[in-house]
């Protein structure tokens, strides 16, 4: 009989621990942390540290490659579990609405203003141009989107669009379409920020141009006030959300181009995560805007009621996102 190898005795003494950790991780990773008992949950970090020390010993004393590779893989899995996020989904969602979203919106106020200014500029330019020469209209609004709303249309025909209550059965699909379409565009605006802000800027400006052009069309037919209500009932929420998605995009591109004191990679990653935080909020806002546009606007045809909803949503979003919060400054300083 040959002597038992030292590394072999080492494995025999600790193998049970590793296998226990392996099994616990299997269950935890399957998402069933809740059916682990408290004792099992508490044993994971202990087993993890024991296994980590086994890995150090194995690297220094064992030439069994299968063993070291196994321990490395096991330790890596355990590391990601032990040092992973510790909050539940519900806590995360709560934290997002109570602090994370408004705080990020406040931190990105400069980008938000720039994004809004670009949209406003596009709207103003398109408005002035279209009002003076209706020929510009087709340059801002592609024919397939105009849907008969052209400078040649009569005021009566344009009016019908504002108050039409046709196709009531299709309101829900319409709302769903508007939401998914707008959300996709806003995610694109965010992603395009990565290309040094420029494409996001173009997207914001052209979006403003389309608004300005169609508004000018209605103003020239004496329907400016009515158009305002039609646009703003959902537009306050939707345009605010689009502005924020542009701001999130600008943040990435700006920090990429001008990282300041920070390392470029760190700066971009930080900006990307801030922007993403804001984007979760943008998607929430757009789903509300989709409901207001798809359902609210088709069911509420009184101009004053539309303006009232627009005003209310403006105040509500403003207060929610930008009102100073008690304790915010102290936590921010930490």
């Amino acid at each position: 009989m040959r002597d038992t190898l030292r590394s072999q005795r080492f494995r025999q003494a600790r193998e049970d621990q590793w296998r226990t950790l392996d099994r616990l991780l299997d269950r935890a990773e399957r998402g069933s942390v809740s059916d682990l008992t408290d004792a099992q949950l508490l044993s994971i970090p202990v087993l993890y540290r024991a296994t980590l020390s086994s890995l150090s010993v194995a690297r220094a004393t064992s030439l069994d490659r299968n063993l070291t590779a196994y321990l490395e893989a096991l330790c890596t899995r355990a590391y990601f579990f032990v040092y992973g996020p510790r909050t539940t989904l519900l806590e995360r969602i709560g934290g997002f609405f109570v602090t994370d979203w408004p705080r990020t919106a406040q931190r990105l106020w400069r980008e938000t203003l720039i994004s809004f200014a670009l949209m406003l500029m596009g709207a103003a330019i398109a408005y002035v141009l279209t009002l003076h020469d209706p020929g510009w209209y087709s340059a801002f609004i592609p024919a397939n989107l105009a849907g008969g709303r052209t400078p040649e249309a009569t005021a009566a025909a344009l009016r019908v669009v504002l108050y039409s209550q046709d196709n009531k059965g299709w309101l829900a699909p319409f709302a769903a379409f508007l939401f998914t379409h707008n959300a996709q565009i806003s995610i694109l605006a965010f992603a395009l920020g990565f290309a040094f802000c420029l494409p996001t800027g173009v997207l914001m400006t052209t979006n403003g141009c389309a608004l300005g052009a169609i508004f000018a069309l209605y103003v020239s037919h004496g329907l400016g006030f009515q158009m305002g209500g039609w646009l703003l009932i959902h537009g306050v929420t939707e345009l605010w959300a689009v502005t924020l998605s542009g701001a999130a995009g600008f943040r990435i591109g700006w920090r990429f181009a001008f990282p300041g004191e920070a390392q470029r990679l760190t700066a971009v990653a930080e900006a990307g995560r801030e922007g993403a935080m804001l984007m979760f909020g943008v998607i929430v806002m757009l789903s509300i805007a989709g409901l207001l546009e798809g359902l609210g606007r088709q069911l509420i045809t009184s101009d004053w009621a539309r303006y009232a909803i627009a005003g209310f949503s403006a105040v509500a979003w403003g207060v929610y996102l930008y009102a100073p919060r008690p304790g915010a400054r102290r936590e921010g300083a930490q």
Partner: protein
Amino acid sequence: MTDTYVPPSPLDTHRIRELVTPEGVDLQLRLADAGERAGAFLIDAAVIVGVLIGATIALALIAVVVRAPFMPQAMVVVWLLGFFLLRNFYFIGFELSGRAATPGKRMIGLRVASRNGGPLTADAIFARNALREIEVYLPMSFILANAGGLGGWMVTAGLVWSGVFALFPLFNRDRLRAGDLAAGTWVVRAPKRRLGIELARRAEAEAPFAFTVAQIGAYGEAELQVLEDVLRSNNSRVVADVAMRIRRKIEWTSAPGERDGAFLDAYYAALRGRLETGMLFGRRRRDKHDRPV
């Protein structure tokens, strides 16, 4: 730790990144290479397209078969929202789970991790996946625009521009996508490994082989690892071939009825024992050309 440990394959070394845990042990993460990333993505894309086609057919059938009022509308709503969720939240949802990997990444044995070693947060996962918009969908939309009749030069320019984002991982050492860059993440290999049997133990059951010091000293660690692979793969032809070569090299005279497997088991245990004893005294022997321990 790094100076005493030989990583399994020298081909891998340029992809190993240091991750020192708070306990002070370097986990030596291996980054996924471009092929593994592309493979995982193709699996995920196939799953998405498959689910989309299946769900579309199912929803259409329901709308036709169930003749309730508003049924077509309800199915359209489900389809629109389902398409949006699938396109944007397939990756996000799976990466938010404990394994931090989509089905494609799980099959290849990859996971997403935070580059600074900290916890992987929801905002990072959103950021890395939102950028697929410019990495995947933007180039795709330019290709479709070509079919839609946009000018050839415009399409080419668009493809070149958006191709920069799509091919980003090929142009940096860490194989980062634009999304990884914007989220502070990277994709590492995190396969689930099985602990194999203890090979040295198998030798104990056999009759003892008496190797001389010179016979055991014929090889180093590299050869030991090859021998381990041979024993674990357990292919009888390879085992016979390797046993024959080792016998010739160490000038071993076989006892009558000696099995190749038993000989290799015993030689493996003896060689490993000797090299490991050397290790304890700080003497390593990389391969047979290195000086003996």
